[in-house]
């Protein structure tokens, strides 16, 4: 149901692009207005979301430690899985963000009820799928810069050449096109066919995957199946980045559809789970050093709490403590004398911790 709903939503977006450009001819809207709007929404949205998170303080230093901590000098610390200073945290974050360190750890539980055994094997498929998806997406995105620049920077050209290395087909097929569509397809299929995963999946999960798949396939069609006026499109792209845009009449509605889906992705991103791309930087269980015992962390809202003071404790147990020979601050006689001497005196054991 959630999958069907998401699929319908993406198909509706495609239809909208068709109606908008193919039928109504709203090229300015789809080619100029929406791209600008979506980039603004994307950038402001991300900044707004990050500020929202950052507004909440981090009261405690709570890294999840995944290796030996720094302790005695002769015990080898695992600096990347249990960092103890800022530099090591950067190392941990690089591993996490660029190489998906935690996902790489993934295991698969195999339950053998008859043998009373639970065993765990490595499980790298999700990691492979995730790496393939994210990096191919990055390359595809980067390749597209050729539309937005003149002359095209050498690195973009190089990426393009390496990506099209096999020189199959005219124009050459890019490896990443297939990796991207394959990886997104895999991520979608596992969601549909692994029962536990289907059980937890929401529209929030299917929709972005289908949207990406839509972007990937329209892009593929544009390059390989339909004749596309690349020069006109480049003109539009250059016009957009130089703030003198002009929507090309020659470009097909499919191109506008591709562009429209990208615009939707941009506008959807800040309000969706895709914000994990920024959120991972702010995750307190990963981005803090485990040097808690060496460097004090300050909680900005630390407030006094009601505690049970030693005085209150001794007042309750003084007789017994004294009888048992345990040291006391005041002997029972002293306490009794104090009490009778000044019933109006200071019974200051208010029980409030006045620290900070």
């Amino acid at each position, binding site marked *: 149901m959630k999958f069907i709903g998401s699929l319908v939503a993406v198909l509706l977006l495609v239809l909208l692009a068709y109606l908008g450009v193919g039928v109504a001819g709203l090229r300015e809207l789809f080619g100029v207005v929406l791209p600008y709007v979506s980039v603004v929404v994307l950038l402001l949205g991300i900044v707004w979301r990050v500020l929202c998170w950052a507004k909440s303080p981090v009261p405690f230093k709570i890294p999840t430690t995944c*290796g030996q901590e720094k302790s005695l000098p002769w015990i080898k610390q695992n600096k990347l899985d249990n960092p103890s200073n800022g530099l090591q945290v950067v190392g941990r974050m690089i591993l996490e963000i660029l190489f998906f360190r935690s*996902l790489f750890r993934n295991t698969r539980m195999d339950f053998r009820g008859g043998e009373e055994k*639970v065993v765990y094997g490595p499980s790298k498929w999700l990691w492979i799928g995730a790496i393939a998806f994210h990096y191919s997406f990055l390359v595809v995105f980067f390749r597209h810069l050729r539309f937005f620049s003149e002359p095209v920077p050498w690195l973009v050209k190089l990426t393009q050449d390496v990506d099209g290395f096999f020189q199959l087909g005219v124009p050459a097929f890019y490896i990443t096109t297939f990796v991207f569509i394959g990886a997104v397809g895999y991520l979608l299929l596992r969601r549909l066919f692994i029962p536990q995963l289907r059980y937890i999946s929401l529209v929030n999960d299917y929709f972005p995957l289908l949207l990406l798949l839509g972007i990937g396939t329209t892009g593929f069609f544009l390059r390989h199946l339909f004749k596309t006026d690349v020069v006109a499109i480049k003109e539009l792209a250059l016009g957009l980045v130089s703030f003198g845009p002009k929507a090309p009449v020659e470009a097909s509605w499919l191109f506008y559809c591709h562009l429209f889906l990208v615009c939707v992705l941009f506008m959807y991103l800040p309000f969706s789970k895709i914000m994990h791309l920024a959120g991972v930087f702010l995750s307190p269980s990963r981005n803090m050093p485990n040097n808690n015992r060496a460097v004090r962390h300050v909680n900005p809202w630390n407030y006094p709490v009601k505690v049970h003071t030693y005085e209150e404790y001794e007042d309750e147990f003084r007789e017994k*403590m004294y009888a048992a020979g345990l040291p006391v601050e005041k002997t029972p006689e002293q306490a009794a004398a104090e009490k009778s001497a000044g019933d109006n005196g200071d019974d200051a054991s208010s029980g409030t911790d006045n620290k900070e």
Partner: protein
Amino acid sequence: MAEPSFDSMDYYKKDELLEVDHKPPRTSWMKTPVEFRPGTWIYPTKAKHLEYLGMPNPRDWSPTDEDWKLPDNWQEIIFNGMRERLDKYRSFKVFMDICVRCGACADKCHFFIGGGDPKNMPVLRAELIRSVYRKDFTTAGKLLGRMVGARKLTYDVIKEWFYYFYQCTECRRCSVFCPYGIDTAEITMMGRELLHELGLGVNWAMEPVANCFRTGNHLGIRPHGLKDTLEFFAEDIEEATGISIDIPMNKKGAEVLFITPSGDFLADPGTYTCMGYMALFHEIGLDYTWSTYASEGGNFGLFTSHEMIKRLNAKMYAEAKRLGVKWILGGECGHMWRVVNQYMDTMNGPADFLEVPKSPITGTVFENAKSTKMVHIMEFIADLIKHGKLKLDASRNDHLKVTFHDSCNPARSMGILEEPRYVLKHVCNNFYEMPENTIREQTFCCGGGAGLGTDENMEMRLRGGLPRGSAVKHVQDKYGVNTLATMCAIDRATLQTVCDYWAPGVGVSGITEMVANAMIMKGEKKRKLNFRLEPVWGDPDEDEEG
């Protein structure tokens, strides 16, 4: 013979427990109400404990009741409570927003592995609260509802929260595997804090909290009772070794304040570990003291609320200051070390009245503890061994084939992995590791942490204990392991049950107990009895002298 009751492990047949179906049911999780089956939930907090602690909405109620007697404005309380915590904890806010439901955490939870209930998949446990967050705090959730995983906060949601946030041991294993480090312990802590706002908690956690607040320890041992207990241990030590030892208590001006979980005062085999500390400190001549006021290392506040952590933890520094010690040494405990490592200094520090810990025996300065001024007993002992300050005869533990259970908190909230292994390898000759995906940072919970280790929760404890039990059985079958060493008081209390059920024949031991048994003490008599007073080294009745 009487039929065993649901709070006894004999009630549960192994083959029935092992019939776990990990496939989710047909009904969507939002439409699957929780069923309070005996053995899977914990008795609620008695009103008197909440009253004593000054916590909201004390009353007597039962989860099996239709009406939980919630305050009239319970929805408003939860809404405000959530908003407050979203504003105070970045962790909570970020974790509410960035989960992509990749499912990597799903089969990492011991309760899901052993029970198969989909709401025990960490991702779904978080969704229990995330769904309400979406409805109340996000525009998409307000507009699109269930499609985007948002749902209204209903009475059933509260019941579900109570059930599942007390089926999480806050062990953080899922957080190790999460690509964004989403920490279910953090989510569960928030969930429990919110439930406490409605007066919903479990007695197994809150009675200890109330006890600790009043008497200084979870068990409610009063000062003179603690003195008796330690004197009793000293007698046993004398019987085993022939050595009479001092018991410094509430001693002003001692160099070190020693604090350990109170479980070690009462329940075997923790008691033997406690005797181990006493024998060790005597042997090395440590100038230390016990405290009756700060007689608890553990902190069930961690299973209650951040505020309660602070309220209970405050005693440690307060007592260190009153007694004028130089630094604090902490015993073998799991969650105690999460609190000491991650909360104590922030909440109740700075401890500028203490000195940077320095071992008076070896001269080692514990730079890693220079701010909290609190050292872990395993760091302390490892340092002693490294400097050759202990005379150890590991062969005294030759009757033990040992494996080591990393406790959740020392492993995943601190990272003290090598010290206990270093110590163990010096005090026993037969040491075997469990499979690698079940130890160190990937260690499995005992199934009874975070306030769940009570007998009325037996079914869940056995289910949650299955992954650990299965790994123990593996080394038992393979190497003949008969001892599970662990440095956590809750483990010592709960793992014996887990072993008895899943790997019968394996006993549980603290590490310091094994250290003390291997330690050749100055002036000891010919050792025949270990600290359990078991004749493991010969017949004690045979030839009294020579």
